Each structure stands twice: as structure tokens, then as C-alpha cells.
């Protein structure tokens, strides 16, 4: 039981000071102006459709990125996990390597290509670079989970007469849900809030929520920071909602897996 104590330094010292307190500062700036409580910024953000476009852009680009990364990435992880251990270790390096390279540099590479291709400053340009930047973050967690998967379960399913598709759907997929959840989290959250990619490739034609917030904070005047803080809180709430959905998915699958075995 004493193991719980290992988490105390983080839970009771680091987290309150460096995570919760700073967030309260953002909340403060969203609701206060010069020390006085105000709904001014909340009204400004929700009153009209001004921020709806950026909001919508961020949402669909993040959703599309996550879905496409999962579609491309899951088969990669699955194929890797079925390889001989040594080959898989080497091939997986190919997918880890880009993660080690600076994201702005990787985005710059797309800038060169898209400019030649004549596709710069389009939603597609932002989407493809976002997928490119975040794909490894989908592959790695799923691969790690699949690798740990007990191969005897698969053999058992085969022995009991399940075909390949059945084995995959009823044995492999349910057990890889934790990996999928971390992968989706690691892709969706940063994709939803990215601003560097759209700043570099969007050319003002594709404006994202993250970009709006960054602009607000960089301009430095208190009223504008208030709007930025409010937008930031909207973004946080949205991502928390998606988190809750994903936790539900994981929980449902967890109990199902439990009864199966």
C-alpha cells in the first residue's frame, strides 16, 4: 500500500504549483479586468459568429488528422507487431526517427513541397502537414501495446476455430484499445491546438483556434489577453469533453474484455 506515497511529491507539490495555479491565472484573466469581475470577454467570444470559423477549422482538421492517422497507423503497428522481434525493432526505428526531428523543420519541408506543387495556403496543406507531423505519435503507442499482447490468446482463438478476421476483431483489437486511446490522445490534443503549422502553411486562408489564441496573447494588452484566455478555456473544455468520451470507450471495452476472459 505504501506505493501510493510515490505519487505524493507530484500530486501534492508539483501539480498544484505548476499545473493548477497557472490555469487559475488563465481563468482569472478570462473573468477579470483590472481586478474587477466581468463577463465582457465571455460575451465577446460567444455573442456572434466571429470565432466560429476558427473553431470549426480546428475541429475538423483535428478530427480528420486523428482518423487518418489511426487508419494509416494501426495497420503499420499491426504489421510491425507480427514481424520477427528483431526485424520489428529495426523497422519501428523508421517510424520513431521522424519524432526526434524538430517539428518546425518537418513542417518547413512541407512548405517547400507544397510551394512547388502550388498547394500552399489551402486547408489541404495544413491537413497533410498535421497528419505528417503527428503520425508517429499514433503508431508508437499502438505498436507498444500490440507488442505486449499475449500471442497465446491468438493461438487459442485460432484453435477454437476463429478465422483471421474474427481473431483480429475479438482478440487483438479489444486488447489494443489502451494503445489506441493513448495514440488518439497524443494526436488529437496537439492537432486541435496547433498554431505553428497553420501559421507557416495557412497563409491567413486557414485560421485555427490555436492561432487566434496565440495572436491574442502576443499582443499583450489586457483586454485582448482576456479574449485569448476565454478562447483558451473554450478549447480546454472541448478537449476535456473528448477526453471523457475516450475514457468511456476505454471503460466499456475494459469490462467487456474482463468478461470475455
Amino acid at each position, binding site marked *: 500500500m505504501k506505493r501510493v506515497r510515490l505519487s505524493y511529491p507530484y500530486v501534492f507539490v508539483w501539480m498544484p504549483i505548476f499545473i493548477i495555479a497557472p490555469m487559475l491565472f488563465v481563468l482569472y484573466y478570462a473573468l477579470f479586468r483590472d481586478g474587477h469581475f466581468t463577463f465582457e470577454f465571455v460575451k465577446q467570444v460567444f455573442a456572434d*459568429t466571429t470565432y466560429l*470559423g476558427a473553431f470549426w477549422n480546428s475541429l475538423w482538421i483535428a478530427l480528420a488528422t486523428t482518423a487518418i492517422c489511426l487508419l494509416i497507423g494501426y495497420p503499420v503497428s499491426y504489421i510491425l507487431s507480427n514481424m520477427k522481434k528483431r526485424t520489428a525493432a529495426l523497422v519501428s526505428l523508421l517510424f520513431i526517427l521522424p519524432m526526434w526531428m524538430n517539428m518546425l523543420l518537418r513542417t518547413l519541408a512541407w512548405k517547400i513541397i507544397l*510551394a512547388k506543387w502550388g498547394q500552399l*495556403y489551402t486547408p489541404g496543406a495544413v491537413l497533410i502537414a498535421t497528419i505528417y507531423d503527428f503520425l508517429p505519435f499514433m503508431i508508437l503507442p499502438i505498436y507498444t501495446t500490440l507488442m505486449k499482447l499475449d500471442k497465446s490468446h491468438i493461438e487459442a482463438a485460432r484453435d477454437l476455430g476463429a478465422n483471421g478476421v474474427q481473431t483480429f476483431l475479438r482478440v487483438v483489437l479489444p486488447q489494443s484499445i489502451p494503445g489506441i486511446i493513448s495514440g488518439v490522445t497524443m494526436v488529437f490534443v496537439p492537432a486541435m491546438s496547433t498554431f505553428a503549422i497553420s501559421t507557416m502553411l495557412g*497563409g491567413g*486562408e486557414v*485560421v485555427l483556434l490555436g492561432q487566434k489564441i496565440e495572436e491574442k496573447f502576443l*499582443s499583450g*494588452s*489586457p483586454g485582448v489577453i482576456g479574449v485569448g484566455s476565454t478562447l483558451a478555456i473554450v478549447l480546454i473544455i472541448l478537449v476535456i469533453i473528448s477526453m471523457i468520451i475516450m475514457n468511456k470507450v476505454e471503460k466499456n471495452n475494459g469490462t467487456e474484455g474482463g468478461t470475455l476472459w
Partner: protein
Amino acid sequence: MKKTIAIVLAAVMAFAILPLLAACNNANTVNLLNWGDYLDPELIDAFKQQTGYTVKETNVTSNEEMLIQLDQDDCPYDMCIPSDYAVERLIAKGRLAEIDYNNIPNIKYIDKDLLEKCEVFDPGNKYSVPYTWGILGIMYNTKLVDEADLGSWDLLWNEKYAGQIYMYNSIRDSMAAALIKCGYDINTDNEAEINEAADALIELKNKNIVQAWLTDDVKDNMVNEDGAIALVYSGDAVWSMNTEDGGNADLSFFVPEEGSNIYFDNIVIPVNSKKKDIAEQFINFLLDPENAAKNTEFIGYSSPNTEVAELIDEFFTGNPAYNLTDEEKARCEIFRDLGDKIEMYEKAWDRVFK
């Protein structure tokens, strides 16, 4: 595996910590907060050779970043080069030190007319020394644009060139173009006027007249002829036309007849700098005609130094974006610090970039 990772990490850490310790010794170093590529690094070397002092440069990309950095009590910088309206704000907030001109005899080389213009944001020229200046205007490709269409801000709204126009992705600059086109002052705080200007920008978006809203990419794209017309600062136009530096000789520049914005980037010293004397020594060094000429050829922005014209390459003095006329200067106005009223511009701008 574990051991190898541990060894590699330990090695990298040892390598990484050494310079950290070395960086602590900086008694002979002054910190300069500057725009990227906005000071010839060879001048920093020369200054070090002459005086033994090291100038350490940190780059930012906007006046707003500079304001954030300078608007704190523990500001670590000894010099900064903000634009006019940012200088005005910093003076109002008491963030700048008064410059001791006894330490800067080379101030005599600075154009008196320009110094007088600078009094709009720095009365008495007490806190800032002009570093570069320029005018917001239109760069165009002579092969792609009819001469008859030139002259006015209307060119940016000309549907004939739909999809070939670049606007500047910065509130004050694009709004200035729209405000003047609508017949208003670039420093207006009248909400109706601001909204009318924003509507003019929305028209550009809705009719797909603008290809993209960019900042510095404009230069490369114009050089590569991806577009034909761009809202630019004169200094950036100079860079794009310099064929020796990968520019395009077909590009040209004009200041619209309705008038425009004239801007100054100025060297200032934060009030809490502990090395003000070294900073002033460096400012004096930069104002030396030879050094100023070298720096001007590096940056490409117009210099306020009266001696520089004699010393720099003919390319610059013959360039319409470098050698701006008195008449053009007279048509232009300086951006004022709008304080909290900038929020009206922010709101209007948000309507443009939905």
C-alpha cells in the same frame, strides 16, 4: 539496452551542462533584443575587437513580443529596436532610459527632418535613436501588372488581379491600407470607420482577390512570381529587387498617392539596464557612417544616416523603394499607440479572419 541509454544520456548531459556553466559569466556582454537578420553580425565582431564587449543578440518577430519582454521589471536586455508606436507605449509606461547624447557624438549624422518626425512618438528625441525607416507601399511585378492600374491603393482591390495579390498578415498594416482606401486616418478610433475598413478587407476575402495573407513569405513568393502584387514595407521591397541577393529585377515599388504609413525602427535602452554606458557606446558605433553603410547593405532598409548614401552600392540609391522622396515622406503618417483602443481593431480583424 538500459545501460546503453544511461551511458548515452549521461554523456549528452555532461556535454550539455558545460556550456550552461560557461554562460553564467557575462560581465562584458550586453543583450540586444532585435528582429531577425536586422544587424550585420560582422559589426558585432568589429565592436568586440574595438572595445572588448560582446553584443548578444536575441531575435523576435513582432513589436508585441518586444513589448512583452521589455514590460517587466527584470528585463534582461540592454538594447532593443522597437517600432515607433511601441516606443511611444514604452515611454508612457516608463520602461525606457533617457539617452545621454554626450556618449553619442555620431548623432550629428542623423537626418534632422527624420528626427523631427520622430518627435511624434518621442518628443525631444530623448529615449530613442532612429535605426531604419521606410514606408508601407505596394510592390508589383512590371511584367504582370499594367502601368495604367498603378498609383492608388485601389490596385489591391482590383479584381483583374484576383488570386495574384498578397496582403500583410498584421492588423495595423492591412487595416492602414483599407482605412486610407476608405478615406480615413490610419490612427482612427472611430468604430464605424474601423468597421468600414474591415468590410473592405472582407470583400478581398469573399471575392478571392487575395491569394494569401502573409508576413515575410511575401518576399520569396514575389521573387518566384507566384503573385503579382503585394502590400509590403519599402525595406522588404528593396530585398526582393536585389538581384545580387537572389532577387527579381522585374519587381518595382510605389507609394500610393492617397498617402500611407511611414515607420521608424529605433534603438532604445530599457530603464533597468545596468550597462547603459556600453549600450550607448554601441549605438555610437552603429551611427558611424562606415558602419552604418555596411549595416544598411546587409539589411536593405533605408538608413536615417545622412552620410550613408555616399558610401553604399548604387543599387540602393537608385532603387525607388530605398531612395524614398521628400514628397512621398510628406504624404505619410506615423502609427500612434492606440492603447486599449487597439481592441476595436482586434475585434474588426477577427471579423475578417473568421
